[in-house]
Protein backbone atom coordinates (compact mmCIF):
# COMPACT_ATOMS: atom_id res chain seq x y z
CA UNK A 1 0.00 0.00 0.00
CA UNK A 2 1.19 3.53 0.84
CA UNK A 3 4.71 4.65 0.09
CA UNK A 4 3.93 8.27 1.06
CA UNK A 5 1.26 10.71 -0.09
CA UNK A 6 1.04 11.27 -3.83
CA UNK A 7 -2.07 13.43 -3.53
CA UNK A 8 -2.14 16.11 -0.86
CA UNK A 9 -5.00 18.54 -0.33
CA UNK A 10 -4.78 21.29 2.27
CA UNK A 11 -7.74 23.51 3.10
CA UNK A 12 -9.27 23.22 -0.37
CA UNK A 13 -12.36 25.36 -0.77
CA UNK A 14 -14.50 26.01 -3.80
CA UNK A 15 -17.74 27.84 -4.37
CA UNK A 16 -19.57 28.50 -7.60
CA UNK A 17 -21.53 31.64 -8.44
CA UNK A 18 -25.25 31.12 -8.70
CA UNK A 19 -27.23 32.49 -11.60
CA UNK A 20 -28.96 35.71 -10.54
CA UNK A 21 -31.89 37.62 -11.95
CA UNK A 22 -31.17 40.53 -14.28
CA UNK A 23 -32.56 42.95 -11.71
CA UNK A 24 -30.18 41.75 -9.00
CA UNK A 25 -27.25 41.68 -11.40
CA UNK A 26 -27.84 45.25 -12.54
CA UNK A 27 -28.82 46.89 -9.23
CA UNK A 28 -26.61 44.88 -6.90
CA UNK A 29 -23.66 43.77 -9.01
CA UNK A 30 -21.23 43.41 -6.12
CA UNK A 31 -23.11 40.91 -4.04
CA UNK A 32 -23.05 37.62 -5.84
CA UNK A 33 -24.71 34.50 -4.50
CA UNK A 34 -22.68 31.36 -4.27
CA UNK A 35 -23.08 27.65 -3.85
CA UNK A 36 -20.40 26.10 -1.67
CA UNK A 37 -19.02 23.01 -3.41
CA UNK A 38 -16.04 22.22 -1.18
CA UNK A 39 -15.14 23.46 2.23
CA UNK A 40 -11.74 23.22 3.89
CA UNK A 41 -10.81 19.80 2.55
CA UNK A 42 -7.68 18.21 4.01
CA UNK A 43 -6.73 14.87 2.55
CA UNK A 44 -3.69 12.79 1.77
CA UNK A 45 -3.74 9.75 -0.46
CA UNK A 46 -0.75 7.44 -0.47
CA UNK A 47 1.03 6.17 -3.59
CA UNK A 48 -0.45 2.86 -4.70
CA UNK A 49 -3.59 3.34 -2.65
CA UNK A 50 -7.14 2.72 -3.82
CA UNK A 51 -9.08 5.49 -2.15
CA UNK A 52 -12.85 5.74 -2.24
CA UNK A 53 -14.74 9.00 -2.10
CA UNK A 54 -18.26 8.25 -1.01
CA UNK A 55 -21.02 10.78 -1.23
CA UNK A 56 -24.44 11.51 -2.62
CA UNK A 57 -25.09 13.54 -5.76
CA UNK A 58 -23.92 17.10 -5.29
CA UNK A 59 -21.59 16.21 -2.41
CA UNK A 60 -18.59 17.73 -4.21
CA UNK A 61 -16.86 14.57 -5.50
CA UNK A 62 -16.70 15.69 -9.12
CA UNK A 63 -15.54 19.19 -8.21
CA UNK A 64 -12.74 17.71 -6.13
CA UNK A 65 -11.70 15.53 -9.06
CA UNK A 66 -11.82 18.45 -11.46
CA UNK A 67 -9.55 20.44 -9.19
CA UNK A 68 -7.06 17.58 -9.13
CA UNK A 69 -7.29 17.27 -12.92
CA UNK A 70 -6.56 21.05 -13.23
CA UNK A 71 -9.91 21.62 -14.96
CA UNK A 72 -11.26 23.73 -12.11
CA UNK A 73 -9.20 26.10 -9.98
CA UNK A 74 -9.72 26.08 -6.20
CA UNK A 75 -10.71 29.30 -4.41
CA UNK A 76 -8.58 28.54 -1.38
CA UNK A 77 -6.08 26.02 -0.13
CA UNK A 78 -3.56 24.04 -2.10
CA UNK A 79 -3.58 20.74 -3.95
CA UNK A 80 -0.47 18.86 -4.97
CA UNK A 81 -0.11 15.74 -7.07
CA UNK A 82 3.27 13.98 -7.01
CA UNK A 83 4.63 17.20 -5.54
CA UNK A 84 3.28 19.43 -8.34
CA UNK A 85 0.89 22.24 -7.53
CA UNK A 86 -2.34 21.90 -9.54
CA UNK A 87 -2.70 25.64 -9.94
CA UNK A 88 0.86 26.62 -10.86
CA UNK A 89 2.19 23.42 -12.41
CA UNK A 90 -0.90 22.17 -14.22
CA UNK A 91 0.94 20.76 -17.23
CA UNK A 92 3.21 18.65 -15.01
CA UNK A 93 0.24 17.44 -12.97
CA UNK A 94 -1.39 16.29 -16.20
CA UNK A 95 1.61 14.10 -17.02
CA UNK A 96 1.05 12.00 -13.89
CA UNK A 97 -2.68 12.23 -13.30
CA UNK A 98 -5.52 11.38 -15.67
CA UNK A 99 -9.22 11.69 -15.01
CA UNK A 100 -11.71 9.36 -16.61
CA UNK A 101 -14.01 12.02 -18.06
CA UNK A 102 -17.35 10.28 -17.53
CA UNK A 103 -18.99 11.97 -20.50
CA UNK A 104 -19.54 9.64 -23.47
CA UNK A 105 -19.83 12.62 -25.76
CA UNK A 106 -16.22 13.50 -25.03
CA UNK A 107 -15.24 10.65 -27.36
CA UNK A 108 -14.99 11.22 -31.10
CA UNK A 109 -18.11 9.32 -32.17
CA UNK A 110 -17.51 9.34 -35.90
CA UNK A 111 -14.13 7.62 -35.73
CA UNK A 112 -13.08 4.20 -34.48
CA UNK A 113 -12.19 3.23 -30.92
CA UNK A 114 -8.64 2.57 -32.14
CA UNK A 115 -8.34 6.07 -33.61
CA UNK A 116 -9.78 7.63 -30.44
CA UNK A 117 -7.11 5.96 -28.34
CA UNK A 118 -4.41 6.71 -30.89
CA UNK A 119 -5.26 10.41 -30.73
CA UNK A 120 -4.93 10.49 -26.95
CA UNK A 121 -1.74 8.42 -27.10
CA UNK A 122 -0.30 11.14 -29.37
CA UNK A 123 -1.44 13.89 -27.01
CA UNK A 124 0.42 12.07 -24.24
CA UNK A 125 3.56 11.86 -26.40
CA UNK A 126 3.26 8.21 -27.39
CA UNK A 127 3.89 7.70 -31.11
CA UNK A 128 4.35 5.13 -33.85
CA UNK A 129 4.71 1.43 -33.05
CA UNK A 130 4.63 2.09 -29.32
CA UNK A 131 1.27 3.84 -29.67
CA UNK A 132 -0.02 0.98 -31.81
CA UNK A 133 1.06 -1.57 -29.19
CA UNK A 134 -0.37 0.43 -26.32
CA UNK A 135 -3.71 1.01 -28.02
CA UNK A 136 -4.02 -2.65 -29.04
CA UNK A 137 -3.15 -3.74 -25.50
CA UNK A 138 -5.75 -1.39 -23.99
CA UNK A 139 -8.49 -2.45 -26.38
CA UNK A 140 -7.86 -6.04 -25.33
CA UNK A 141 -7.78 -5.04 -21.70
CA UNK A 142 -11.23 -3.44 -21.82
CA UNK A 143 -12.66 -6.15 -24.06
CA UNK A 144 -13.04 -4.00 -27.16
CA UNK A 145 -10.38 -5.61 -29.36
CA UNK A 146 -12.98 -7.14 -31.67
CA UNK A 147 -14.70 -3.82 -32.29
CA UNK A 148 -11.63 -1.59 -32.29
CA UNK A 149 -12.16 -0.53 -35.91
CA UNK A 150 -15.86 0.20 -35.43
CA UNK A 151 -17.19 3.77 -35.14
CA UNK A 152 -17.65 4.69 -31.50
CA UNK A 153 -21.12 6.10 -32.22
CA UNK A 154 -22.29 2.53 -32.81
CA UNK A 155 -21.13 1.38 -29.38
CA UNK A 156 -23.43 0.66 -26.46
CA UNK A 157 -23.22 2.86 -23.39
CA UNK A 158 -21.18 0.24 -21.53
CA UNK A 159 -18.71 -0.07 -24.39
CA UNK A 160 -18.24 3.68 -24.48
CA UNK A 161 -17.68 3.63 -20.73
CA UNK A 162 -14.96 1.02 -21.17
CA UNK A 163 -13.39 3.07 -23.93
CA UNK A 164 -13.34 6.13 -21.66
CA UNK A 165 -11.45 4.09 -19.09
CA UNK A 166 -9.03 2.80 -21.72
CA UNK A 167 -8.49 6.38 -22.88
CA UNK A 168 -7.50 7.44 -19.40
CA UNK A 169 -5.04 4.55 -19.14
CA UNK A 170 -3.22 5.36 -22.37
CA UNK A 171 -0.53 7.37 -20.60
CA UNK A 172 0.03 4.82 -17.80
CA UNK A 173 -0.88 7.47 -15.20
CA UNK A 174 0.48 7.36 -11.69
CA UNK A 175 -2.85 8.66 -10.42
CA UNK A 176 -6.19 7.77 -11.95
CA UNK A 177 -9.44 9.54 -11.10
CA UNK A 178 -12.55 7.45 -11.61
CA UNK A 179 -15.93 9.10 -11.27
CA UNK A 180 -18.62 6.42 -10.92
CA UNK A 181 -16.86 4.05 -13.31
CA UNK A 182 -19.40 1.24 -13.18
CA UNK A 183 -22.44 3.45 -13.68
CA UNK A 184 -23.33 2.16 -17.16
CA UNK A 185 -21.74 -1.25 -16.95
CA UNK A 186 -23.46 -4.61 -16.74
CA UNK A 187 -22.72 -6.72 -13.63
CA UNK A 188 -20.14 -8.92 -15.33
CA UNK A 189 -18.20 -6.00 -16.80
CA UNK A 190 -18.44 -4.16 -13.48
CA UNK A 191 -16.96 -7.15 -11.69
CA UNK A 192 -14.19 -7.44 -14.29
CA UNK A 193 -13.43 -3.75 -14.03
CA UNK A 194 -13.22 -3.92 -10.23
CA UNK A 195 -10.90 -6.89 -10.47
CA UNK A 196 -8.80 -5.06 -13.05
CA UNK A 197 -8.57 -1.97 -10.84
CA UNK A 198 -7.63 -3.94 -7.74
CA UNK A 199 -5.31 -6.57 -9.18
CA UNK A 200 -3.77 -5.08 -12.29
CA UNK A 201 -3.83 -1.32 -11.92
CA UNK A 202 -3.17 -0.98 -8.23
CA UNK A 203 -1.66 -4.40 -7.47
CA UNK A 204 0.77 -4.81 -10.35
CA UNK A 205 1.23 -1.33 -11.81
CA UNK A 206 1.23 0.52 -8.49
CA UNK A 207 -1.20 3.14 -9.78
CA UNK A 208 -3.01 5.28 -7.24
CA UNK A 209 -6.75 5.25 -7.84
CA UNK A 210 -9.26 7.73 -6.47
CA UNK A 211 -12.74 6.39 -6.92
CA UNK A 212 -15.80 8.59 -6.52
CA UNK A 213 -19.02 6.73 -6.10
CA UNK A 214 -22.26 6.49 -4.18
CA UNK A 215 -22.09 2.72 -4.21
CA UNK A 216 -20.97 1.58 -0.76
CA UNK A 217 -20.58 -2.02 -1.87
CA UNK A 218 -18.08 -0.90 -4.48
CA UNK A 219 -16.12 1.04 -1.90
CA UNK A 220 -16.17 -1.81 0.62
CA UNK A 221 -15.02 -4.29 -1.99
CA UNK A 222 -12.31 -2.19 -3.55
CA UNK A 223 -10.96 0.54 -1.37
CA UNK A 224 -8.20 0.58 1.22
CA UNK A 225 -9.55 3.77 2.70
CA UNK A 226 -12.66 5.80 2.25
CA UNK A 227 -13.61 9.43 2.66
CA UNK A 228 -17.20 10.48 3.15
CA UNK A 229 -18.07 13.74 1.50
CA UNK A 230 -21.30 15.54 2.24
CA UNK A 231 -22.26 19.01 1.04
CA UNK A 232 -18.65 19.87 0.34
CA UNK A 233 -17.33 18.74 3.71
CA UNK A 234 -15.14 15.70 4.25
CA UNK A 235 -16.96 14.19 7.19
CA UNK A 236 -14.79 11.17 7.82
CA UNK A 237 -11.73 9.44 6.45
CA UNK A 238 -10.39 6.08 7.42
CA UNK A 239 -9.74 2.48 6.53
CA UNK A 240 -13.02 1.15 5.18
CA UNK A 241 -13.33 -1.62 7.77
CA UNK A 242 -12.28 0.72 10.61
CA UNK A 243 -14.85 3.27 9.63
CA UNK A 244 -17.64 0.72 9.66
CA UNK A 245 -16.42 -0.61 13.02
CA UNK A 246 -16.01 2.84 14.50
CA UNK A 247 -19.50 3.82 13.50
CA UNK A 248 -20.79 0.57 14.95
CA UNK A 249 -22.58 -0.30 11.80
CA UNK A 250 -23.71 -3.89 12.25
CA UNK A 251 -26.87 -4.33 10.37
CA UNK A 252 -28.26 -7.77 9.61
CA UNK A 253 -31.14 -9.01 7.57
CA UNK A 254 -33.05 -12.23 8.09
CA UNK A 255 -36.03 -13.98 6.55
CA UNK A 256 -38.37 -15.91 8.83
CA UNK A 257 -41.74 -17.59 8.71
CA UNK A 258 -42.33 -16.85 12.41
CA UNK A 259 -42.05 -13.09 12.82
CA UNK A 260 -44.44 -13.19 15.77
CA UNK A 261 -42.49 -15.86 17.64
CA UNK A 262 -41.90 -15.07 21.30
CA UNK A 263 -38.14 -15.07 20.67
CA UNK A 264 -38.46 -11.88 18.61
CA UNK A 265 -40.53 -10.19 21.25
CA UNK A 266 -37.72 -10.80 23.72
CA UNK A 267 -34.95 -9.43 21.46
CA UNK A 268 -35.31 -5.81 22.49
CA UNK A 269 -35.63 -6.69 26.13
CA UNK A 270 -32.69 -9.09 26.18
CA UNK A 271 -30.32 -6.52 24.78
CA UNK A 272 -28.88 -8.89 22.23
CA UNK A 273 -30.31 -6.88 19.36
CA UNK A 274 -33.12 -4.67 18.33
CA UNK A 275 -35.58 -4.98 15.55
CA UNK A 276 -35.12 -2.08 13.20
CA UNK A 277 -37.70 -2.78 10.61
CA UNK A 278 -40.14 -5.54 9.84
CA UNK A 279 -41.34 -5.89 6.25
CA UNK A 280 -44.44 -7.55 4.86
CA UNK A 281 -44.32 -11.27 4.19
CA UNK A 282 -43.61 -12.30 0.60
CA UNK A 283 -45.79 -14.66 -1.43
CA UNK A 284 -44.14 -17.71 0.15
CA UNK A 285 -44.80 -16.42 3.65
CA UNK A 286 -41.24 -15.27 4.46
CA UNK A 287 -41.00 -12.00 6.36
CA UNK A 288 -37.87 -9.87 6.12
CA UNK A 289 -36.59 -8.38 9.36
CA UNK A 290 -33.74 -5.88 9.54
CA UNK A 291 -31.79 -5.99 12.76
CA UNK A 292 -29.09 -3.84 14.18
CA UNK A 293 -26.70 -5.64 16.50
CA UNK A 294 -24.21 -3.16 17.96
CA UNK A 295 -22.05 -5.91 19.48
CA UNK A 296 -21.24 -7.25 16.01
CA UNK A 297 -20.72 -10.65 14.40
CA UNK A 298 -20.22 -12.77 17.56
CA UNK A 299 -23.47 -11.55 19.03
CA UNK A 300 -25.20 -12.08 15.67
CA UNK A 301 -24.02 -15.72 15.70
CA UNK A 302 -25.32 -16.18 19.23
CA UNK A 303 -28.65 -14.68 18.25
CA UNK A 304 -28.98 -17.00 15.28
CA UNK A 305 -28.15 -20.02 17.46
CA UNK A 306 -30.77 -18.94 19.96
CA UNK A 307 -33.45 -18.53 17.30
CA UNK A 308 -32.59 -21.98 15.93
CA UNK A 309 -32.72 -23.57 19.39
CA UNK A 310 -36.15 -22.06 19.94
CA UNK A 311 -37.36 -23.54 16.65
CA UNK A 312 -37.73 -20.30 14.74
CA UNK A 313 -37.47 -20.97 10.99
CA UNK A 314 -34.84 -18.71 9.43
CA UNK A 315 -34.11 -19.16 5.71
CA UNK A 316 -31.41 -16.50 5.38
CA UNK A 317 -29.37 -14.43 7.80
CA UNK A 318 -26.86 -11.98 6.38
CA UNK A 319 -24.91 -8.84 7.10
CA UNK A 320 -26.01 -5.84 5.00
CA UNK A 321 -24.56 -2.43 4.17
CA UNK A 322 -26.12 0.63 5.74
CA UNK A 323 -27.86 2.76 3.11
CA UNK A 324 -25.69 5.70 2.09
CA UNK A 325 -28.10 8.32 3.37
CA UNK A 326 -28.16 6.67 6.79
CA UNK A 327 -24.40 6.24 6.82
CA UNK A 328 -23.96 9.94 6.10
CA UNK A 329 -26.43 10.86 8.82
CA UNK A 330 -24.42 8.82 11.29
CA UNK A 331 -21.13 10.27 10.15
CA UNK A 332 -22.59 13.77 10.38
CA UNK A 333 -23.45 13.08 14.00
CA UNK A 334 -19.97 11.69 14.51
CA UNK A 335 -18.18 14.28 12.38
CA UNK A 336 -16.13 16.33 14.86
CA UNK A 337 -13.96 13.42 15.96
CA UNK A 338 -13.57 12.06 12.42
CA UNK A 339 -12.12 15.07 10.66
CA UNK A 340 -8.73 14.88 8.97
CA UNK A 341 -7.42 12.47 6.46
CA UNK A 342 -3.90 11.23 6.88
CA UNK A 343 -3.23 7.79 5.42
Amino acid at each position, binding site marked *: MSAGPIVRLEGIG*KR*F*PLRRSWTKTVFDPRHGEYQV*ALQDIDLEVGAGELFGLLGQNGAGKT*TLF*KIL*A*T*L*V*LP*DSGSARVAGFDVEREG*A*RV*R*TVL*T*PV*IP*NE*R*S*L*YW*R*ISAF*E*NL*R*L*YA*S*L*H*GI*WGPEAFRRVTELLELVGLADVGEK*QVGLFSSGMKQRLLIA*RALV*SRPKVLLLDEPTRSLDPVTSRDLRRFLREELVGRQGCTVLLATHDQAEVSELCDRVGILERGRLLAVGATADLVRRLEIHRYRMWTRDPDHAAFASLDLSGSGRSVERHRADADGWTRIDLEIPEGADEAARLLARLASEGVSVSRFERVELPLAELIERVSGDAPRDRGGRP
Partner: protein
Amino acid sequence: MRKISALVRATWLTAKSYRMSLLFSFGGLAVAFVPLYLAARALQPVAADSIQAEGGEYFGFLVLGLVATSLINFAMRALPGAISSGIASGTLEALLATPTRLVTLLAGLVAYPFLLTIARSVLFLVGMVLVGTSVVWTGVPLAIAVLALILVAHLSIGLAAAALHLVFRTSGPLTSAVLTVSTLLGGVYYSTNVIPEVIRPLSAAVPLMYGLRALRRALLSGEPVGAVAADVGILATFAAVGLAVGFTAFGWALRYARRAGTLAQY
Protein backbone atom coordinates in the same frame (compact mmCIF):
# COMPACT_ATOMS: atom_id res chain seq x y z
CA MET B 1 3.76 19.41 -34.47
CA ARG B 2 2.97 15.70 -34.07
CA LYS B 3 0.20 16.52 -31.61
CA ILE B 4 -1.29 18.98 -34.10
CA SER B 5 -1.08 16.28 -36.80
CA ALA B 6 -2.89 13.84 -34.51
CA LEU B 7 -5.73 16.32 -33.99
CA VAL B 8 -5.88 17.05 -37.73
CA ARG B 9 -6.08 13.31 -38.41
CA ALA B 10 -8.97 12.87 -35.95
CA THR B 11 -10.84 15.84 -37.45
CA TRP B 12 -10.15 14.64 -41.00
CA LEU B 13 -11.42 11.15 -40.21
CA THR B 14 -14.54 12.70 -38.66
CA ALA B 15 -15.08 14.96 -41.69
CA LYS B 16 -14.48 12.02 -44.05
CA SER B 17 -17.24 10.08 -42.34
CA TYR B 18 -19.70 12.76 -43.50
CA ARG B 19 -19.12 11.95 -47.20
CA MET B 20 -21.80 14.11 -48.76
CA SER B 21 -20.84 17.15 -46.73
CA LEU B 22 -17.22 16.78 -47.85
CA LEU B 23 -18.30 16.35 -51.45
CA PHE B 24 -20.52 19.43 -51.35
CA SER B 25 -17.82 21.58 -49.78
CA PHE B 26 -15.64 21.11 -52.87
CA GLY B 27 -18.41 20.62 -55.43
CA GLY B 28 -19.93 23.95 -54.38
CA LEU B 29 -16.68 25.62 -55.37
CA ALA B 30 -17.12 24.71 -59.02
CA VAL B 31 -20.75 25.81 -58.92
CA ALA B 32 -19.74 29.22 -57.50
CA PHE B 33 -16.82 29.73 -59.87
CA VAL B 34 -18.66 29.86 -63.21
CA PRO B 35 -21.30 32.53 -62.43
CA LEU B 36 -18.63 34.56 -60.65
CA TYR B 37 -16.48 34.52 -63.76
CA LEU B 38 -19.37 35.50 -66.01
CA ALA B 39 -20.51 38.30 -63.69
CA ALA B 40 -16.96 39.63 -63.40
CA ARG B 41 -16.59 39.73 -67.18
CA ALA B 42 -19.85 41.62 -67.49
CA LEU B 43 -18.78 44.16 -64.87
CA GLN B 44 -15.24 44.60 -66.25
CA PRO B 45 -16.01 47.78 -68.26
CA VAL B 46 -17.69 49.42 -65.26
CA ALA B 47 -14.97 48.51 -62.73
CA ALA B 48 -11.86 48.90 -64.90
CA ASP B 49 -11.09 52.55 -64.09
CA SER B 50 -11.46 52.29 -60.34
CA ILE B 51 -9.23 49.19 -60.04
CA GLN B 52 -6.49 50.32 -62.43
CA ALA B 53 -3.93 50.59 -59.63
CA GLU B 54 -4.72 47.04 -58.49
CA GLY B 55 -4.26 45.11 -61.73
CA GLY B 56 -7.15 46.51 -63.73
CA GLU B 57 -8.78 43.12 -64.30
CA TYR B 58 -12.00 42.68 -62.33
CA PHE B 59 -12.13 38.87 -62.16
CA GLY B 60 -8.64 38.64 -60.62
CA PHE B 61 -9.50 41.57 -58.31
CA LEU B 62 -12.66 39.78 -57.21
CA VAL B 63 -11.08 36.35 -56.70
CA LEU B 64 -8.33 37.80 -54.49
CA GLY B 65 -10.98 39.64 -52.49
CA LEU B 66 -12.97 36.46 -52.00
CA VAL B 67 -9.92 34.37 -51.10
CA ALA B 68 -8.93 36.94 -48.47
CA THR B 69 -12.52 36.98 -47.19
CA SER B 70 -12.56 33.20 -46.82
CA LEU B 71 -9.30 33.43 -44.88
CA ILE B 72 -10.62 36.05 -42.47
CA ASN B 73 -13.84 34.11 -42.14
CA PHE B 74 -11.76 31.10 -41.07
CA ALA B 75 -9.54 33.20 -38.79
CA MET B 76 -12.48 34.72 -36.95
CA ARG B 77 -14.87 31.77 -36.79
CA ALA B 78 -12.85 28.54 -36.63
CA LEU B 79 -11.63 28.92 -33.06
CA PRO B 80 -14.93 30.01 -31.46
CA GLY B 81 -16.62 27.24 -33.47
CA ALA B 82 -14.17 24.63 -32.22
CA ILE B 83 -14.49 25.88 -28.64
CA SER B 84 -18.27 25.89 -28.87
CA SER B 85 -18.54 22.34 -30.19
CA GLY B 86 -15.78 21.21 -27.80
CA ILE B 87 -17.73 22.54 -24.83
CA ALA B 88 -21.01 21.11 -26.08
CA SER B 89 -19.57 17.64 -26.63
CA GLY B 90 -17.13 17.53 -23.72
CA THR B 91 -14.13 16.91 -25.97
CA LEU B 92 -12.59 20.21 -24.89
CA GLU B 93 -12.48 19.14 -21.26
CA ALA B 94 -10.94 15.79 -22.21
CA LEU B 95 -8.32 17.49 -24.38
CA LEU B 96 -7.47 20.04 -21.69
CA ALA B 97 -6.86 17.17 -19.26
CA THR B 98 -3.90 16.01 -21.39
CA PRO B 99 -0.38 17.42 -20.97
CA THR B 100 -0.67 19.41 -24.21
CA ARG B 101 0.24 23.09 -24.36
CA LEU B 102 -2.74 25.35 -24.88
CA VAL B 103 -1.32 26.90 -28.05
CA THR B 104 -0.74 23.43 -29.53
CA LEU B 105 -4.25 22.39 -28.64
CA LEU B 106 -5.81 25.48 -30.20
CA ALA B 107 -3.69 25.09 -33.32
CA GLY B 108 -4.69 21.44 -33.55
CA LEU B 109 -8.37 22.25 -33.20
CA VAL B 110 -8.35 24.72 -36.10
CA ALA B 111 -5.67 23.12 -38.29
CA TYR B 112 -8.08 21.02 -40.33
CA PRO B 113 -10.48 23.85 -41.21
CA PHE B 114 -7.39 25.92 -42.00
CA LEU B 115 -6.07 23.32 -44.43
CA LEU B 116 -9.53 23.05 -45.97
CA THR B 117 -9.70 26.83 -46.44
CA ILE B 118 -6.22 26.84 -48.01
CA ALA B 119 -7.17 23.97 -50.34
CA ARG B 120 -10.33 25.76 -51.46
CA SER B 121 -8.42 29.03 -51.93
CA VAL B 122 -5.71 27.35 -53.98
CA LEU B 123 -8.34 25.72 -56.19
CA PHE B 124 -9.96 29.12 -56.72
CA LEU B 125 -6.63 30.76 -57.56
CA VAL B 126 -5.69 27.96 -59.95
CA GLY B 127 -9.08 28.38 -61.63
CA MET B 128 -8.40 32.11 -61.89
CA VAL B 129 -5.10 31.51 -63.66
CA LEU B 130 -6.61 28.84 -65.92
CA VAL B 131 -9.28 31.23 -67.26
CA GLY B 132 -6.57 33.66 -68.28
CA THR B 133 -6.11 36.15 -65.46
CA SER B 134 -2.56 37.44 -65.69
CA VAL B 135 -0.54 36.93 -62.54
CA VAL B 136 2.92 38.33 -61.85
CA TRP B 137 4.68 35.24 -60.59
CA THR B 138 7.53 37.14 -58.95
CA GLY B 139 4.92 38.70 -56.67
CA VAL B 140 3.78 35.33 -55.32
CA PRO B 141 6.10 35.19 -52.24
CA LEU B 142 5.04 38.70 -51.21
CA ALA B 143 1.38 37.80 -51.82
CA ILE B 144 1.72 34.73 -49.59
CA ALA B 145 3.30 36.87 -46.85
CA VAL B 146 0.46 39.41 -47.12
CA LEU B 147 -2.17 36.66 -46.95
CA ALA B 148 -0.44 35.28 -43.84
CA LEU B 149 -0.56 38.74 -42.24
CA ILE B 150 -4.26 39.13 -43.15
CA LEU B 151 -4.86 35.79 -41.47
CA VAL B 152 -2.93 36.65 -38.31
CA ALA B 153 -4.49 40.10 -38.02
CA HIS B 154 -7.95 38.52 -37.97
CA LEU B 155 -6.95 35.60 -35.78
CA SER B 156 -6.96 38.11 -32.93
CA ILE B 157 -10.70 38.66 -33.51
CA GLY B 158 -11.12 34.87 -33.49
CA LEU B 159 -9.29 34.63 -30.17
CA ALA B 160 -11.41 37.42 -28.70
CA ALA B 161 -14.58 35.72 -29.98
CA ALA B 162 -13.43 32.40 -28.48
CA ALA B 163 -12.75 34.20 -25.18
CA LEU B 164 -16.27 35.65 -25.23
CA HIS B 165 -17.62 32.18 -25.95
CA LEU B 166 -15.78 30.71 -22.98
CA VAL B 167 -17.22 33.33 -20.65
CA PHE B 168 -20.68 34.06 -22.06
CA ARG B 169 -21.31 31.02 -24.31
CA THR B 170 -21.76 33.40 -27.22
CA SER B 171 -19.46 35.73 -29.07
CA GLY B 172 -22.42 37.95 -29.93
CA PRO B 173 -22.26 39.93 -33.15
CA LEU B 174 -18.45 40.41 -32.98
CA THR B 175 -17.37 38.23 -35.90
CA SER B 176 -20.39 39.03 -38.06
CA ALA B 177 -19.88 42.76 -37.49
CA VAL B 178 -16.18 42.63 -38.34
CA LEU B 179 -16.86 40.48 -41.41
CA THR B 180 -19.59 42.82 -42.65
CA VAL B 181 -17.54 45.96 -42.08
CA SER B 182 -14.48 44.35 -43.69
CA THR B 183 -16.48 43.28 -46.72
CA LEU B 184 -18.12 46.67 -47.15
CA LEU B 185 -15.15 48.90 -46.40
CA GLY B 186 -12.17 46.63 -47.04
CA GLY B 187 -12.46 46.55 -50.83
CA VAL B 188 -13.54 42.95 -51.39
CA TYR B 189 -15.97 43.56 -54.28
CA TYR B 190 -14.94 47.08 -55.30
CA SER B 191 -12.05 49.42 -54.86
CA THR B 192 -12.14 51.57 -51.74
CA ASN B 193 -11.84 54.55 -54.11
CA VAL B 194 -15.53 54.24 -54.95
CA ILE B 195 -16.67 54.35 -51.32
CA PRO B 196 -18.49 57.67 -50.61
CA GLU B 197 -16.10 60.22 -49.14
CA VAL B 198 -18.21 60.61 -46.00
CA ILE B 199 -17.45 57.05 -44.84
CA ARG B 200 -14.19 56.43 -46.67
CA PRO B 201 -12.02 57.42 -43.66
CA LEU B 202 -13.56 54.46 -41.83
CA SER B 203 -11.73 52.15 -44.22
CA ALA B 204 -8.50 53.20 -42.54
CA ALA B 205 -9.57 51.20 -39.49
CA VAL B 206 -10.14 48.04 -41.52
CA PRO B 207 -7.00 45.84 -41.69
CA LEU B 208 -8.36 43.97 -44.72
CA MET B 209 -8.21 47.16 -46.78
CA TYR B 210 -4.40 47.38 -46.40
CA GLY B 211 -3.98 43.67 -46.97
CA LEU B 212 -6.09 43.51 -50.11
CA ARG B 213 -4.48 46.58 -51.61
CA ALA B 214 -1.00 45.17 -51.04
CA LEU B 215 -2.03 41.70 -52.24
CA ARG B 216 -3.50 42.89 -55.53
CA ARG B 217 -0.68 45.29 -56.23
CA ALA B 218 1.88 42.54 -55.62
CA LEU B 219 0.18 39.74 -57.48
CA LEU B 220 -1.78 41.48 -60.24
CA SER B 221 0.29 44.64 -60.88
CA GLY B 222 3.70 43.17 -59.97
CA GLU B 223 4.70 46.09 -57.78
CA PRO B 224 7.84 45.60 -55.65
CA VAL B 225 7.98 45.28 -51.86
CA GLY B 226 8.89 48.95 -51.45
CA ALA B 227 5.67 50.06 -53.12
CA VAL B 228 3.47 48.14 -50.71
CA ALA B 229 5.68 48.49 -47.62
CA ALA B 230 3.43 51.09 -45.97
CA ASP B 231 0.32 48.90 -46.31
CA VAL B 232 2.21 45.80 -45.13
CA GLY B 233 3.63 47.74 -42.16
CA ILE B 234 0.18 48.88 -41.01
CA LEU B 235 -1.21 45.36 -41.47
CA ALA B 236 1.70 43.89 -39.48
CA THR B 237 1.01 46.37 -36.66
CA PHE B 238 -2.66 45.34 -36.61
CA ALA B 239 -1.53 41.69 -36.51
CA ALA B 240 1.04 42.13 -33.70
CA VAL B 241 -1.16 44.24 -31.43
CA GLY B 242 -4.27 42.20 -32.17
CA LEU B 243 -2.57 38.90 -31.50
CA ALA B 244 -1.20 40.08 -28.15
CA VAL B 245 -4.64 41.34 -27.12
CA GLY B 246 -6.34 38.19 -28.43
CA PHE B 247 -4.07 35.78 -26.56
CA THR B 248 -4.36 37.82 -23.37
CA ALA B 249 -8.16 37.82 -23.63
CA PHE B 250 -8.28 34.10 -24.33
CA GLY B 251 -5.90 33.24 -21.48
CA TRP B 252 -7.97 35.36 -19.10
CA ALA B 253 -11.23 33.78 -20.28
CA LEU B 254 -9.85 30.26 -19.88
CA ARG B 255 -8.75 31.07 -16.36
CA TYR B 256 -12.19 32.54 -15.65
CA ALA B 257 -13.89 29.37 -16.96
CA ARG B 258 -11.61 27.21 -14.83
CA ARG B 259 -12.35 29.38 -11.81
CA ALA B 260 -16.11 29.39 -12.45
CA GLY B 261 -16.13 25.67 -13.28
CA THR B 262 -17.90 26.30 -16.58
CA LEU B 263 -15.35 24.76 -18.93
CA ALA B 264 -17.61 21.84 -19.72
CA GLN B 265 -20.98 23.45 -19.07
CA TYR B 266 -23.05 24.34 -22.05
